[in-house]
């Protein structure tokens, strides 16, 4: 049976699986500005979705439990389902195969880090705004008994992942670009490119040097 979310038509750009398909290597090295706040368990545990309810209904049920507006980080909403895991596992294997190519021995630590990532089965969503979803029911997916939803608090940092798999956490600033975060982390001054993985799962490649600078969206909290 086709999972209900497969029938959704997304109006935005094609969604990219959770960071794995965008791991591109180059002789000049690269960094990922990357994190996944949804992988952190929400204090008290996620509210259990009810089979057959819409995502909008589930989001509205979370409202009374949120101590203040903004505490539920919609951008980082994690919708996962086991049916998505096989495809993501295959993607992970392809990425690891790419990292294992000759000449990429310096990326062994990064490959180990990718290998250790859980295959979450995350499903990407057009928006996590309950009222917008209600106004756009073709984008408002229905949960089933295997669906897991996690709505975390908004983090205050952006995490930079170096090619040696070391992490550097930097306080989030609204107008800071990827290059600004790299500048806050030692050893990244020579990086030419970066991949930004936003908390909603979207990933984009950006130039971070003067010669390849471009208009770009900033990393969000938890990116």
């Amino acid at each position: 049976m086709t999972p209900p979310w497969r029938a959704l038509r997304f109006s935005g750009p094609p969604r990219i699986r959770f960071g794995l398909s965008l791991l591109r290597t180059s002789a000049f090295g690269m960094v990922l500005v990357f994190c996944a706040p949804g992988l952190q368990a929400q204090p008290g545990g996620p509210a259990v979705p009810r089979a057959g309810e819409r995502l909008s209904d589930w989001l509205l049920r979370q409202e009374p439990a949120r101590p203040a507006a903004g505490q539920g980080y919609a951008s980082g909403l994690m919708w996962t389902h086991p049916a998505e895991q096989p495809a993501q596992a295959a993607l992970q294997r392809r990425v690891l195969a790419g990292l294992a190519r000759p000449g990429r021995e310096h990326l062994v630590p990064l490959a180990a880090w990718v290998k250790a990532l859980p295959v979450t089965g995350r499903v990407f969503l057009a928006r996590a705004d309950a009222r917008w979803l209600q106004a756009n029911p073709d984008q408002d997916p229905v949960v089933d008994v295997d669906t897991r939803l996690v709505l975390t608090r908004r983090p205050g940092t952006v995490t930079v992942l170096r090619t040696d798999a070391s992490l550097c956490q930097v306080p989030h600033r609204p107008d800071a670009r990827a290059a600004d975060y790299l500048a806050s982390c030692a050893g990244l001054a020579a990086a030419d490119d970066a991949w930004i993985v936003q908390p909603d799962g979207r990933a984009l490649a950006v130039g971070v040097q003067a010669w390849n600078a471009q208009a770009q969206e900033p990393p969000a909290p938890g990116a």
Partner: protein
Amino acid sequence: MRVRQGGSESFVVLGDVDLAASGRAEVWYSAGRQVLRLRHGRVVSSAGLPFDWSNSEAVGLPASWAAIGGEPVSYLRVRDEYPGHRMGVRERVVVRRVAAPAALALPGVTEPQWRAWAWFSETAHADAGLAGTRVAPVLPAALFGVDLRAAGEPVRYSRQCLAPDVCVELQPWGAPPAAP
């Protein structure tokens, strides 16, 4: 509610009221499946517009329009913007009472009626976080026409901008304004 954006006019309907720690927000829906949330007449979030706000919070905003008198009042606004994931935008918003506009064409409202409203402007500046720091306004000034004589201080008209080139005029439709 009648909505003018650019040269186009449309109507939105009040569909829900969201209750959150930050207060009660009216949820308005358009035929184009866009969503506007208003709190005390101010846009606090939108979805489906060319440029959207979300999670807008006001710190230090007086509870009523009537509390804003001769002296300007400043409050901190923190919000997110989409597209672009510009999140945690901090603005210092200055609200001041102003004279009624020189001219205003509002369907169903006469000039004596709208001149009887209390008018307020809001000017937003990037919050530099340093006392005494002056920075240029980030958005065109917002304008609000508030009926202080009616219960609940309804905002009868507003012009608000979510981005320098995304501005909307809002006019509640159907509820007659109080006679001057």
